């Protein structure tokens, strides 16, 4: 059984609530999701990993980009001005924080930045809690992370019961820590309660990438994807998946352009106006998901597009386990 968060954590949340909007795992209709909390009691830190990842906070499932009126006047709705003051994302697992680091590289870094993402991201401070146990679906270490990975976190906490130790990682973290009087524990002093749990063996990501690149045309994808039903569970639950579509809708005199999550597993994702689809079957679509995560993302952003949170493993309706798939490529024969 999971232990409840220590007093150190709840005290900290109370202090955070006095300086910022706090988003934390909360229980809603028997499942845990990230939502705004008003008191430390609401935070469900001990209720297991959140069913939905926190990416909704920086990359909502549906986000209005602009709106206008069909009446030719100014009665159309203005775009959502976005968050005002600082927001704290509290109590994420290091894997979820690491996914935000990836989104930062994709949507918030480099030459092309996404202003909608940045608007939400800039005001967000991420406080993660180091994992003290791993679930049967966890595989963060396989993807280069770990139960105490600091990537993407502004502050990483270690729950020591009556108090918690904090590693303050970024400028934002320093600022927030100053606001609430949180002291930095030198990294060396971070003494996890018990040893860090293993969360799958570290995979040789470079070797995996090499073998995947070699297997693009391989028949194996057909066999792997045989049972895939082509739903979007894996991609919608993924904290790192970031593909979207832009849609225009209109009703009662208001036109709205929105950005919505899209999934490479849907046939319409690549279907062209002519009807031609370059990824005609589940095999090509599933291959895209694996290649994007373990080849293209590494190539472009220097880290895999998978952080090993295990949501897709846990919730795939047909148990199409991405760990099994990547392991098959790393198997002895080199080819699955």
């Amino acid at each position, binding site marked *: 059984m999971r232990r409840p968060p220590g007093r150190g954590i709840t005290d900290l949340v109370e202090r955070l609530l006095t300086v910022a909007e706090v988003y934390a795992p909360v229980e809603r209709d028997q499942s845990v999701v990230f939502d705004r909390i008003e008191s430390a009691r609401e935070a469900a830190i001990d209720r297991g990993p959140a069913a939905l990842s926190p990416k909704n906070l920086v990359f909502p499932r549906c986000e209005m980009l602009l709106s206008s009126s069909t009446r030719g006047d100014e009665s159309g709705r203005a775009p959502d001005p976005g968050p005002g003051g600082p927001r704290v994302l509290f109590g994420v697992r290091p894997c979820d924080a690491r996914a935000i680091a990836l989104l930062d590289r994709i949507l918030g870094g480099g030459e092309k930045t996404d202003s909608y993402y940045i608007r939400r991201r800039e005001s967000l401070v991420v406080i993660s809690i180091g994992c003290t146990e791993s679930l049967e679906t966890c595989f963060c270490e396989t993807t280069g992370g770990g139960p105490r990975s600091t990537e993407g976190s502004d502050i990483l906490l270690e729950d020591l019961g009556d108090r918690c130790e904090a590693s303050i990682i970024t400028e934002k973290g320093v600022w927030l820590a100053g606001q609430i009087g949180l002291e930095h524990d030198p990294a060396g002093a971070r003494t996890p309660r018990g040893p860090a749990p293993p969360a799958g063996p570290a995979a040789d990501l470079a070797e995996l990438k090499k073998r995947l690149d070699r297997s693009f045309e391989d028949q194996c994808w057909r066999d792997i994807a045989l*049972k895939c039903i082509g739903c979007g569970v894996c991609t919608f639950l993924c904290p790192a998946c970031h593909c979207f579509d832009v849609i225009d809708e209109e009703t009662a005199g208001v036109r709205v352009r929105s950005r919505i999550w899209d999934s490479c597993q849907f046939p319409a994702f690549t279907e062209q106006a002519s009807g031609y689809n370059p990824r005609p079957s589940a095999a090509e679509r599933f291959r895209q998901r694996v290649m994007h995560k373990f080849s293209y993302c590494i190539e472009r952003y220097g880290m895999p597009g998978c952080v090993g949170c295990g949501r897709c493993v846990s919730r795939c309706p047909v148990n199409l386990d991405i760990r099994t798939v990547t392991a098959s490529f790393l198997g002895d024969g080199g080819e699955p």
Partner: protein
Amino acid sequence: MEASAIVRTVRERAAELLASGRVDLVIGFEQGSMPMRAAPCFVSDADGTDRLVWNSFCGVNLARFLRGRHGRIAVVAKACDTRALVELIKENQLCRTDMVVIGVPCAGMVDSAAVEEITGHAGITGVEEADGRLLLTAGGSPVSLPREDVLCRSCRRCSTRNPVICDIAVGERAPEPEIPGFLDVDQFAALPSEERRTRIEAEMKRCIRCNACRNVCPMCYCVRCFADDAFPQWVGRGGDPGSVMSFHLVRALHLAGRCVECGACERACPTGVDLGILNRRMSADVYRHFGYRPGMAPEIPSPLSTFSPGDPEDFMLEPDRGRSCGCGG
């Protein structure tokens, strides 16, 4: 018959079918990548039949996987799988003569999410079944749960435990409970309209439009789903709650008289939306108005592809009466 004996028989029969060339493919379940998971598997070689398993986690409806495949196919099917097959045959989606049904009696499937809930999400590293109990290793310690307590919602109200169509019967017939009726539907219907709306909207609010319910459903096979239509666009793809609700309403209507209540959609839903809240209403109405239970009899036509002159009409407006009686609502 013991579960292990069922597995053995399934493997033997599957191997015989493949070796003799009677079928080209066997669709069944294999052990998943972790405890409490069984995954659909496709075996085309007699040597591969050792992969086949049968346990309390074979919840996916395998009828979903037969369409669009060439050759003769054997399918390891529980009762609700065969009910879906019956409907698919009726709708000319499958050909009875091209399939071999290896029918397995079913005592209901276990909801792994419910087990995880009870065990507090402590890592489950092992599961065995004996005498109607699940023997789990959760967080390193043994936990024993009665199967009855963790059955899927759809399985609790299921009264069809044995395959409806079957070529090779495996195991002894399972005892079948009385048809439990539609108590849940009636209780819900007794609530005030406003409360029903609030409850259903709360369910729909959790929907993330991943389409898992639709894609896992054996009866959802439209080449292009209305929800994917852009011209005309019937339901919006954005966050509009009316569109989300409409998607599920129209899906429930499309499944009326066809839904075999296997519960695959509910098990597939990553956010635990109670889809039965709509589908059960349709099942109750179809049974009460037209006396039809989907998937039970290959020779009875689908209720919505036919009519009877005496069909109920008291729901309709007679201006002289001034009002309808609101039948069914």
